[in-house]
């Protein structure tokens, strides 16, 4: 083990590899911070550079781009409420309110440090437990994956317990939107009304950008009096977490690292689901859930720790089994296959230098990423000095490019605009945009896995739901779903008794 570790760091600290990791980190943070350039797109954009490198250097470089792009997504989420990558969407819930309170620097510091910790924890897990974790992942069939996605949905009740019915309606609208387009199993068109543009479904990125960024611009257009609070014109100073602050959120970081790593390992789950799951778990576990959504550093920490931990997790099935856990891992895999590397169980035995170099490059990337991302965040935060009369249209402009770049389609821009207007109506009538996005993110995974599981069990729903892992996870879901209802029932009874 020690020899492997040494070998990994020897590879990473050769001048050429180290410089390429630094370059990959810079590229990744910038790409990640650009709305519309997702982590997988960032890796794809970096691919041409990797062709000229040796396989080990190429994977170290691509891993650097991947990890850094996930972190970069948090910068614009905090400063402008535009999630740079889908996995940064939950960061906007508390990161942007912190920026509104003039604490953008603090939010950025929490985001960067927690990203690094999450990434490092996941890479250690990957290095020490790759084969074992991969075997655990193999035990997760459609029924278990359905339970995982349902676990994510069960936290809907925690997002806004004051407006439970409206939050549930919002989540269900998200689930409904996820059903538009070709059905995942039978390829039957649903809710397309004969429009071929709807066949590929409703993309989640334009919806997220619209509901968060455009809605915010519309809010500021309606009430410009609030502009003084946004920090426009003020200086943003990025500050790292103090030891005391880090200690106060230690359990958030621990929980989010574990959730992120485990969800990252599961095929088809990925960083977006990890960050949502982790955020909502924190809301559930918190003694003060009411502060979430209003600028809680635990919210930023949960989301950013988990999405970076998922990057390490997604490397486990890639290296140990040759199964890519997500889009970015699939692109990395294709680069390595093109270079003649055969990924899979034998790789760890015949060429352990791959695992050790990926591990070392992830550790190095996550450390240098804090410094590089801080510098880049400072450049981005200078944009906050621009008066809102210019910044507002600029945000719409970035949101437009982010939505268009996804599929080179102006249809996505229209979708973003409509989502922005719907988002404003949601704010006005106290529905939950976050719940809608959560439903949209988890909808596809929930449906396809449930239907696959029922089909495999020949229609026996009971057999599907009583599998050990599935039953355990579903029990947790029930507890999480019913807890706020029981809690409010008990407190109303107590109030009546005292009155």
């Amino acid at each position, binding site marked *: 083990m020690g020899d492997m570790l040494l070998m990994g760091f020897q590879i990473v600290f050769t001048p050429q590899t180290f410089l390429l990791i630094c370059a990959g980190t810079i590229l990744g943070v910038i790409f990640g911070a650009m709305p519309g*350039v997702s982590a997988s797109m960032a890796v794809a*954009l970096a691919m041409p550079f990797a062709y000229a490198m040796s396989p080990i250097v190429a994977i170290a470089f691509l891993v650097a781009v991947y990890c850094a792009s996930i972190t970069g997504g948090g910068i614009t989420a905090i400063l402008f409420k535009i999630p740079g990558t889908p996995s940064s969407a939950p960061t906007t819930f508390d990161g942007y309110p912190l920026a509104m309170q003039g604490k953008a620097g603090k939010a950025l510091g929490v985001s960067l440090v927690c990203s690094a910790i999450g990434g490092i924890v996941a890479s250690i897990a990957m290095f020490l437990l790759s084969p074992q974790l991969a075997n655990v992942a193999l035990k997760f069939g459609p029924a278990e994956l359905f339970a995982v996605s349902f676990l994510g949905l069960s936290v809907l009740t925690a997002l806004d317990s004051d407006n439970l*019915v*409206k939050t*549930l*309606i919002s989540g*269900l*609208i998200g*689930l*409904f939107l996820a*059903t538009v387009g070709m*059905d995942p*199993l*039978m390829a*039957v068109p*649903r*809710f397309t009304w004969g429009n071929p543009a709807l066949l590929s479904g409703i993309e989640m990125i334009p919806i997220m950008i619209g509901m968060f960024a*455009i809605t915010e*611009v*519309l809010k*500021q*257009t*309606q009430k*410009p009096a609030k502009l003084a609070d946004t920090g426009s014109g003020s200086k943003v100073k990025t500050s790292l977490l103090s030891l005391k602050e880090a200690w106060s959120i230690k359990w958030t970081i621990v929980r989010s690292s574990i959730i992120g790593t485990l969800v990252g390992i599961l095929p088809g789950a990925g960083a977006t689901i990890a960050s949502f799951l982790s955020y909502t778990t924190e809301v559930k576990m918190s003694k003060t859930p009411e502060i979430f959504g209003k600028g809680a550093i635990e919210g930023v920490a949960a989301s950013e720790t988990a999405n970076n931990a998922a990057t390490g997790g997604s490397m486990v099935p890639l290296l140990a089994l040759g199964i890519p856990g997500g889009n970015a891992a699939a692109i990395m895999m294709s680069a390595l296959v093109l270079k003649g590397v055969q990924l899979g169980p034998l790789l760890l035995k015949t060429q352990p230098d791959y695992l050790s170099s990926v591990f070392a490059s992830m550790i190095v990337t996550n450390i240098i990423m804090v410094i590089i991302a801080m510098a880049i965040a400072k450049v981005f935060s200078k944009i906050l000095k621009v*008066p*809102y*009369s*210019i910044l*507002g*249209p*600029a945000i*719409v*402009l970035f949101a*437009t*490019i982010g939505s*268009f*770049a996804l599929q*080179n389609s*102006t249809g996505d*821009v*229209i979708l*973003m*605009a409509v989502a*922005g*207007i719907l988002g*404003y*109506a949601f704010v*006005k*009538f106290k529905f939950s945009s976050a719940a809608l996005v959560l439903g949209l993110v988890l909808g596809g995974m929930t*449906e396809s896995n*449930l*239907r696959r599981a*029922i*089909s495999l069990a*020949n*229609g026996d729903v009971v057999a599907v739901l009583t599998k050990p892992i599935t039953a355990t996870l579903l029990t947790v879901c029930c507890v999480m779903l019913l807890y706020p209802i029981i809690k409010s029932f008990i407190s109303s009874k107590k109030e009546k008794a005292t009155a």
Partner: protein
Amino acid sequence: MILELLFNAALLIFFAYCHYYIGATMPASPPTELGAEQWPQLILRALIILIVVNIVKIYRSTPAEERSLKSLKEIKLPDLIKNKLFAGIIFILLYAFSLEFAGFLLGTFVFIIAYARLIGERRIKVLAGSSFVMTFGLYLLFARGLSIMLPRGYGILRSLALMLESI
């Protein structure tokens, strides 16, 4: 409050129609499977029930005068058009719908000037300068730097966009 009730009623009508539509347009699935139409139907049924519950809650908690349709008559068209939010929504929609034929360059240049003016920027030089820098700067960055071609528009606008891309 009447607006909230109308919003919920619109949601209810739309989702009830979707429930009818999916049932009427898709064949029934075999009993051993959860069919392509059954999952959306489950979601839509839950949605319809919850929206009805929400409407009843709003109706009960609202005084009679506030839920009267008469309050809608108080909204006057000239005031609505002058409303910044309404204008902002129209600008964003026009921008989104015009991108395809007006192209990124013209559409964005005009949009930034119009929206910035709407939310308070009056200096013509600042409006034109910032709009020019953002529009052309971002177009060049994405087209040349990232090979992401933004909408070119039609006719002369397309020629201008192609010329910029070849710089």
